[in-house]
C-alpha cells in the first residue's frame, strides 16, 4: 500500500520535472475527452504532433469552455477571420513584432544570400480532418500560386516566377528564390504569407490539373466556373467551404458565403499547440462571428455585451465615448492598442498628372510645403479627433526604429503667412475676383479631391482644409464620392489629389513603403512612377526623376540583403530622400486605439500593435484566450 502511493508520488514528480515532453500527460477539453472515451476520436497524444508547440500563456494557464463572439461586416470581411482564427502561418511574427519565429514549422534555416529557405515540419502534425500535414502540402500551395494558368487571387508581395518549392523529405521543405530577398520571412509571416499552409493537397488537389487530370470537370460538377475559381473559393483566403481541412485552432462549421448569417467555428481536435501544463489548446470551445450589414449594429452589439473580443470596424475615435460608457452595462472593458498607422489622413497631390500645367505646379516642393503649412492641424485634432493625436507628416512613428524627425515634423507648424510668402515666391501672385491665386497658366488654382464616402473622417478633415486653404488663395474642391469612383480615377490617373490613411508607421514600413517612394498602386501621389517600379508592363509606367530612381535602387538593394542592420541603413537613406522630396502631406498621428474584451476573458493583450501587416490580434496566439471561472 505504502509502496504504491510512493511510486505514485515519484511518478508525478518526474512528470512535473519533464514537463509536457511525455506524450501520456497531455490533457484535452472535456468534449474531446468524451469523444475519445466513446471511441469516435483518437487519443490526444495521437492527434498532437510528436513535439507539439508549447505556448507560454501571457498571464496564466487557462481552463476550457465558452464562446468567443465577434461581428463581420458584409461579404468581404475575411480580413477579420484571417487575423483571428486564421493566423497560423508557417512562420509567425512574435508578439512584440521584433522578429519572425517558427509556428507551424518547428524550425527554419536561411542561407546567407537569402535565397534558400528550409522549413522543418513537426512529425505527426495533422490537418483538422486527421490527415497528415506534410511538405507535399506546402509544395502544392506554391505550385498552385505560381501556376500561370491559375486565374484566382494570388497572395500579394511574392514574385511567383522567381520562386520554386522542393520536397526534401515529408518533413522538410525548401523554397529557392532566383533573386535574394531579405524580407522574405517577414512576408511569409504576414497575413498574405499564410497561403502556404492553407491548401491541403488531399482536399484541394482534386481541383488542380497537376494532381488530378480531370480537375476542371470536378470543379464544374461541384458548381464552379473553372478549377481556378474552385481553388480560390475552397482553399487559400476564402471561407466559403466549411469542409476544407485547416491547421487553425478552430475548424469551420458554417460557411461565410454572404447568405449565412452566423459563421461558427468549433475546436480543432488536431490543433498542434499545448500550454505549459500540457493542455491542448484552444481553451475556448467555439467561435461565433455574426455577419451584419452596418457598423451601428456592431456598436449596439458591443454595448450590449454581445462582442467578446474585437476591434473590427467599430473601434473609432467617434464611437469611443459610447463604448466607454457602456463598459459596466455590457460587462466588457477597453484595452489599449498601439496604432501602427502613422497618419489619419494623407493628402497626396498627383505628381504624375497628365495635365502638364498641373504637373508642373504640383511638382514644386514649395507649393506642397505652403499647402502643408496652411493646414491648421491643431484644429483638425480638436474637431475631428476629440483632441487626441499630434500634427504629423507621412513618416514612421516616433517609437519606430526608422523615426526621422525631419520627415515627421517638417512643415507641420500652422503658419499661413509663411505659406503665403512661399506661394508669392513661386510667382503665383495674381488672383482672381474670389481671391484665388492664378496658376502658371493664368487659370485659378483649383484642386479637385474626391474622398471615399464610406470613410467619413476623410471628408470631415477635407472640409476643414478647404477653409484653411482659402486663407492662402487655393481653392480645394472637396467632395464625397463612391469609393469605386475614387479608385477608378486613380487607376486612370485622372485624379488631382487623393486622401487615404497612413500605413507603414512601424516595421511594416519596410514591406509597404507606399508613402516614402512610389512603390505600389496605393502610392496615389505618383501612380506612373509606381507602375514603372512594379514593372508589370502597364501602359501608364513612366521613368521617374533621379531622386526617385535612387530610392528605387536603394530599395532593390535592401531587398537583396539578409543583414538587418544593413537593411535599416538603406531604409534610413530612402527616408532621408523622402524628407528632401516631401511627396505627400500628412495630418495627424493617430493616438492609441482600443479593443473591446469581455471582462471575464483572460490572457488579453494590453497595448498590442494594430495594423494590417501585423495581423492583430493573431500573433498573441488567440488559442490562449479563456474565460475566468
Amino acid at each position, binding site marked *: 500500500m505504502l509502496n504504491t502511493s510512493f511510486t505514485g508520488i515519484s511518478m508525478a514528480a518526474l512528470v512535473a520535472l519533464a514537463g509536457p515532453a511525455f506524450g501520456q500527460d497531455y490533457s484535452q477539453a472535456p468534449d474531446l475527452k468524451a469523444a475519445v472515451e466513446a471511441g469516435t476520436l483518437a487519443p490526444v497524444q495521437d492527434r498532437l504532433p510528436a513535439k507539439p508547440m508549447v505556448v507560454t500563456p501571457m498571464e496564466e494557464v487557462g481552463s476550457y469552455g465558452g464562446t468567443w463572439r465577434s461581428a463581420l461586416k458584409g461579404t468581404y470581411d475575411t480580413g477579420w477571420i484571417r487575423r483571428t482564427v486564421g493566423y497560423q502561418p508557417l512562420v509567425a511574427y512574435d508578439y512584440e513584432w521584433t522578429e519572425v519565429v517558427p509556428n507551424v514549422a518547428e524550425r527554419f534555416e536561411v542561407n546567407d544570400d537569402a535565397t534558400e529557405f528550409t522549413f522543418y515540419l513537426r512529425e505527426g502534425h495533422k490537418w483538422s480532418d486527421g490527415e497528415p500535414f506534410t511538405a507535399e502540402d506546402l509544395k502544392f500551395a506554391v505550385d498552385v500560386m505560381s501556376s500561370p494558368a491559375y486565374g484566382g*487571387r494570388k497572395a500579394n508581395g511574392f514574385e511567383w516566377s522567381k520562386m520554386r518549392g522542393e520536397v526534401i523529405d515529408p518533413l522538410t521543405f525548401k523554397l529557392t528564390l532566383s533573386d535574394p530577398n531579405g524580407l522574405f520571412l517577414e512576408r511569409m509571416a504576414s497575413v498574405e504569407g499564410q497561403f502556404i499552409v492553407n491548401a491541403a493537397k488531399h482536399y484541394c488537389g482534386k481541383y488542380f490539373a497537376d494532381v488530378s487530370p480531370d480537375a476542371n470537370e470536378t470543379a464544374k460538377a461541384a458548381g464552379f466556373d473553372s478549377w481556378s475559381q474552385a481553388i480560390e473559393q475552397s482553399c487559400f483566403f476564402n471561407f466559403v467551404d466549411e469542409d476544407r481541412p485547416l491547421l487553425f485552432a478552430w475548424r469551420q462549421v458554417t460557411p461565410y458565403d454572404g447568405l449565412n448569417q*452566423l459563421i461558427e467555428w468549433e475546436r480543432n481536435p488536431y490543433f498542434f499547440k499545448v500550454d505549459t501544463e500540457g493542455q491542448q489548446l484552444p481553451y475556448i470551445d467555439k467561435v461565433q462571428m455574426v455577419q451584419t450589414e452596418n457598423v451601428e*449594429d456592431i456598436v449596439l452589439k458591443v454595448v450590449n455585451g454581445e462582442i467578446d473580443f474585437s476591434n473590427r470596424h467599430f473601434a473609432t475615435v467617434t464611437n469611443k465615448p459610447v463604448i466607454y460608457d457602456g463598459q459596466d452595462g455590457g460587462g466588457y472593458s477597453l484595452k489599449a492598442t498601439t496604432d501602427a498607422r502613422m497618419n489619419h489622413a494623407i493628402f497626396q497631390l498627383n505628381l504624375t498628372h497628365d495635365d502638364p500645367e498641373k504637373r508642373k505646379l504640383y511638382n514644386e516642393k514649395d507649393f506642397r510645403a505652403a499647402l502643408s503649412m496652411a493646414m491648421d492641424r491643431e484644429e483638425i485634432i480638436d474637431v475631428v479627433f476629440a483632441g487626441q493625436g499630434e500634427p504629423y507628416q507621412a513618416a514612421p512613428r516616433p517609437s519606430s526604429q526608422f523615426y526621422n524627425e525631419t520627415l515627421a515634423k517638417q512643415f507641420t507648424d500652422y503658419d499661413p503667412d509663411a505659406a503665403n510668402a512661399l506661394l508669392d515666391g513661386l510667382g503665383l501672385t495674381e488672383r482672381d475676383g474670389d481671391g484665388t491665386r492664378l496658376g502658371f497658366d493664368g487659370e485659378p488654382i483649383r484642386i479637385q479631391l474626391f474622398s471615399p464616402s464610406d470613410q467619413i473622417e476623410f471628408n470631415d478633415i477635407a472640409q476643414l482644409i478647404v477653409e484653411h486653404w482659402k486663407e492662402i488663395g487655393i481653392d480645394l474642391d472637396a467632395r464625397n464620392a463612391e469609393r469605386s469612383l475614387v479608385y*477608378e480615377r486613380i487607376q486612370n490617373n485622372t485624379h488631382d489629389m487623393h486622401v487615404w490613411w497612413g500605413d507603414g508607421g512601424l516595421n511594416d514600413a519596410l514591406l509597404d513603403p507606399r508613402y516614402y517612394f512610389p512603390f505600389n498602386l496605393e502610392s496615389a501621389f505618383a501612380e506612373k512612377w509606381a507602375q514603372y517600379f512594379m514593372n508589370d508592363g502597364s501602359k501608364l509606367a513612366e521613368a521617374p526623376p533621379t531622386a526617385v530612381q535612387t530610392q528605387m535602387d536603394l530599395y532593390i538593394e535592401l531587398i537583396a540583403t539578409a543583414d538587418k542592420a544593413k537593411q535599416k541603413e538603406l531604409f534610413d537613406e530612402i527616408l532621408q530622400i523622402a524628407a528632401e522630396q516631401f511627396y505627400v502631406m500628412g495630418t495627424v498621428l493617430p493616438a492609441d486605439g482600443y479593443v473591446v474584451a469581455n471582462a471575464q476573458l483572460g490572457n488579453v493583450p494590453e497595448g498590442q500593435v494594430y495594423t494590417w501587416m501585423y495581423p492583430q490580434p493573431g500573433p498573441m496566439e488567440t488559442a490562449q484566450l479563456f474565460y475566468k471561472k
Partner: protein
Amino acid sequence: MLTYLARRLVTMILTLLALSVVVFVVIQLPPGDFVTSYIASLSAAGESVDQDTITALRDRYKLDSPVLVQYWAWFSEMLHGDFGYSFEMQTPVSEIFSQRIGISLAVELTAVVVMWAVSIPIGIYSAVNQYSLGDYVATVLGFLGLAIPNFLFALVLMYICYNWFGVTITGLFSPEYMNARWSLDRFLDFASHVWAPILVISTAGAAQLVRVLRANLLDELNKPYVLTARAKGLTRRRLIWRYPVRVAMNPLVSTIGWVLPTVISSSFVTAIVLNLPTLSPILLRALLSQDMYLAGALIMFMGLLTLVGTLISDLLLAWIDPRIRLGMVGAN
C-alpha cells in the same frame, strides 16, 4: 375577360423586355465595374492588389467585352432560367434568391397584411366619426407616421429597446437559432424579433392608407344615395360597409400594384439598419459593388412584382366595381 387577360399578359412580357434593357444600362452607368469596386473594398480593409490579379479578374468576368455582347449573354441565359453568377458572393444568383426569398416575402407580406388590417378600420372610423377625439388621435399619429422616415423610426426603436429594456432588436434570429432548422422554438424566436421590422415597415404605409381611405369615404358619405338608403331604413353599419366603403376602396385597390414593390424598396434602409437577412441588403450590396447579374436579377424581380401587382389590382377592381367590369366589356 379572357382576351383582356391575354392582352395584359402580352403587354407585361413586352414591358419586362424593355425593363431588362433599362436595368442593364442603368447598372452599367456608374464609372468602373465590379473589379474596381472589389479593389476599392480590399483597400478599405487594408489590403492591396497586384496588377496581375486585376487583369485576371477582368478576363474571368469578361468585363472588357462590349456592352451589347454582355447584355445578350445575360439576357439569353435568363431565358433559359439561368440568372447568372454573383461576382461578389461567387454563388449562382438563383441560389441566393431561393435562400432569401422566403424570409423576405414572409416579412414583407406580414407587413402588408398588418398595414391593411390596421389602416382600414381606423380609416373608416375616422371618416365616420369625423372631428371626434378618435379622429384627431388617428390624424396626429397618421401624420407622424407619414413624416418620420422608416430608418429613423428603426434607429429610435433600437435606442429605446436597448436603453429601457436592454435588448438589441436587430436581426431576425438570436445567434443560437441562426443556423438551426425550423422548429417551434425557432419560430418563437423569429416571432420575438420580427415585430420590430413589421412595426417599422407598416407604420408609414398604414398612415398613408388611413388618410386616403378617410378622404375617399368622406366624399362618399355626403352623397345623396347614402341619405336615401338611411331614409329607407338601412342600418348605419350595414349601409356603410355595403356601399360607401366599397366605393372608397377603389383607389386603395388600384394601388396594390405599387404596394408590393414599395414594401420591398421602402424596407431597404430599414432592413440594413435593423440588419435583416432579407433580399434588400443583398440588393444594396450588389449595387454598391456593381455585381451586375445579381443586381439585375433583383431589379427585374421588383419590376415583375410591380407588373403582377398592377394586374392583380386591375382584376380586383373589375371584381368589386361593376362600372369598371362593364367598361371592359364595352371596350371589347
